């Protein structure tokens, strides 16, 4: 068991907060800058040079504004919801690697070896592991991936509690949408990772990185799994094109409608932290974590080596965060039936077929590149199937469109006239 003392704990907590808070702050700034860039605007540029102090101003505003609590809400759950959202997002960050890692040693074989030799070997491997540097807050967790998914599935409770306790129909609709969405997308999310686990043979995230270091990144062998994983993760994070729970044109703000000030800020913090966690996860599970074609091994100095590995991982993660922002301002929102259709009719069958392919490749010890071919083939086959046998674009209205008689000018609501 890892030795514990209060000082280390406080330092770790302070460190996590000190890293996460500014990152989230600058992510919000980046979001606005990217949106401005996409829409050919300037974006925030008043506070500090190039608007770089904007997050500071935003944060200060969150603290100083009044926190209104409407009279009709369920007070306990109304205040609990943002805290749940933020706490779960922060806890999930603890098991995801952010720097160079060393997988925990395998069990020592005891059969046919002298007891003394076994003890010596055990002490050596454990001692070597204890001395190695690990860029994870909780290293050596055997069920790493499972814990991340478990905490990810808890994230929906912040939304559900917030929506229900706000006690108005828009919030409730938002939270109902959110729970249906997250339950649906958890299935392809989990199944896309099972293929990776079948190859790496471990749930431990450090072990998965080690496998990729030796055999090549998983995205090379299972590009389809990565695509499914990425899309599911976007849905889990409630990001566009899956932001139905807070669709502002339809639901005001969904579950966020009644929140203001720091409560709203905590929801935002949770959401962006979730984005960071999932970007790290994509990097670690599919893009080789801290490895970069052996370049990181050129640096032999242990301290500089750790720095380089951390930089590689952070750069890859930054790329995925940027992709998050770019997708948000590029792809328009789905309709709810399209969202559900995508999960149940496209992604789950595809992930099942992909899993079958992984099992076949493992069973008959085929080359990993066969799996790449199958992955690409499945992707293309799905497209061909949709074009050949589908019912055309899925954006036709579900009900019959009836043209409503337009009121004479000057009567009715006068929306156009006034």
């Amino acid at each position, binding site marked *: *068991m890892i030795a514990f003392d209060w000082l280390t704990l406080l330092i770790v907590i302070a460190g996590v907060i000190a890293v996460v808070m500014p990152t989230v702050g600058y992510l919000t700034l980046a979001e606005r800058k990217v949106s401005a860039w996409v829409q050919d605007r300037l974006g925030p540029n008043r506070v500090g040079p190039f608007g770089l102090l904007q997050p500071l101003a935003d944060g200060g505003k969150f603290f100083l504004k009044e926190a209104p609590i409407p009279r009709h809400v369920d007070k306990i759950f109304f205040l609990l919801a943002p805290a749940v959202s933020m706490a779960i997002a922060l806890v999930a960050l603890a098991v995801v690697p952010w720097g160079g890692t060393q997988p925990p040693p395998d069990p020592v074989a005891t059969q046919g070896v002298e007891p003394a030799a076994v003890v010596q070997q055990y002490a050596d491997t454990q001692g070597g592991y204890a001395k190695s540097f690990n860029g994870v807050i909780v290293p050596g967790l*055997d069920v790493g991936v499972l814990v991340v998914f478990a905490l990810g599935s808890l994230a929906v409770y912040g939304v*559900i509690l917030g929506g229900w306790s706000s006690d108005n129909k828009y919030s409730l609709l938002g939270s*109902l949408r959110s729970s249906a969405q*997250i339950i649906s997308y958890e299935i392809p999310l989990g199944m896309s990772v099972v293929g990776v686990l079948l190859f790496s043979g471990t749930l431990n995230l450090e072990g998965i990185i080690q496998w990729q270091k030796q055999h090549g990144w998983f995205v090379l062998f299972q590009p389809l799994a990565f695509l499914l994983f990425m899309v599911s993760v976007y849905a889990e994070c409630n990001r566009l094109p899956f932001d139905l729970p807070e669709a502002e044109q339809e639901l005001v703000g969904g579950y966020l409608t009644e929140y203001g000030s720091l409560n709203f800020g905590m929801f935002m913090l949770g959401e962006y932290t979730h984005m960071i966690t999932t970007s790290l996860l994509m990097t670690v599970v599919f893009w080789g974590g801290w490895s970069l074609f052996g370049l990181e091994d050129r640096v032999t100095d242990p301290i500089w080596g750790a720095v380089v590995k951390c930089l590689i991982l952070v750069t890859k993660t930054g790329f995925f965060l940027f992709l998050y922002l770019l997708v948000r301002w590029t792809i328009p929102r789905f309709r709810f039936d399209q969202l559900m259709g995508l999960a149940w009719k496209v992604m789950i069958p595809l992930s099942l077929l992909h899993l079958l392919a992984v099992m076949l490749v493992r069973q008959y010890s085929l080359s990993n590149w066969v799996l790449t071919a199958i992955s690409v083939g499945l992707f293309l086959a799905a497209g061909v199937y949709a074009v050949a046998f589908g*019912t*055309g674009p899925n954006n036709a209205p579900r*009900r019959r469109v009836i043209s409503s008689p337009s009121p004479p000018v000057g009567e009715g609501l006068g929306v156009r006239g006034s």
Partner: protein
Amino acid sequence: MNLTVVLFAMLAAVTAASAVGVAASRSVVRAAVWLLFTLIGVAGVYFLLGAEFLGAAQLIVYVGGTMVLMVFGVMITNQGPFAVLRTKPVEWAVGGVLAGGLFVLLATASLNFVSSGKTPDDPLPGISPIGLSFLGVEDGGKSYLLPFEVVSVHLLVVLVAAAYLARAKRRVNQVASGKEQGTNKEDTRQEQGVTP
């Protein structure tokens, strides 16, 4: 006072307090949400005991899966006579006797518990022993794979049956009123001239 005791005290307090909340709250939705925190607390105790796999499974299956559906269902049906629960005195009595009996049983069992001699400094058991004994590699070749498969196929049958029942109900309505209303998907498509 070491960390284990502090953590256990916190987890036990959360679990017990939210369990009281389940029993004491009148609103169904609140009861469901308090049950959620009870389950999270129990998962925390599993983690504290080093049963990481059990803790994670509890979080995924019960908290992340079952409870979401329950809270979801309770929120939608939170209308009319079931919105507020009123417990009758008889129910209090029966529940109290059952709870008291269970408490006595658990207290006796835990007082007679013989420690397995492991200390917190022992290495934690991983998930590989679970997988190996599951497949019958360890434990004298006794495999648990077949019972597990039987149970999972059983669950699948139940799911398919539930989906079938839900569909069948709609078909009856369709025959009765679907044609007139024309709200049915196929009907609409035919009216629009779209071939399915």
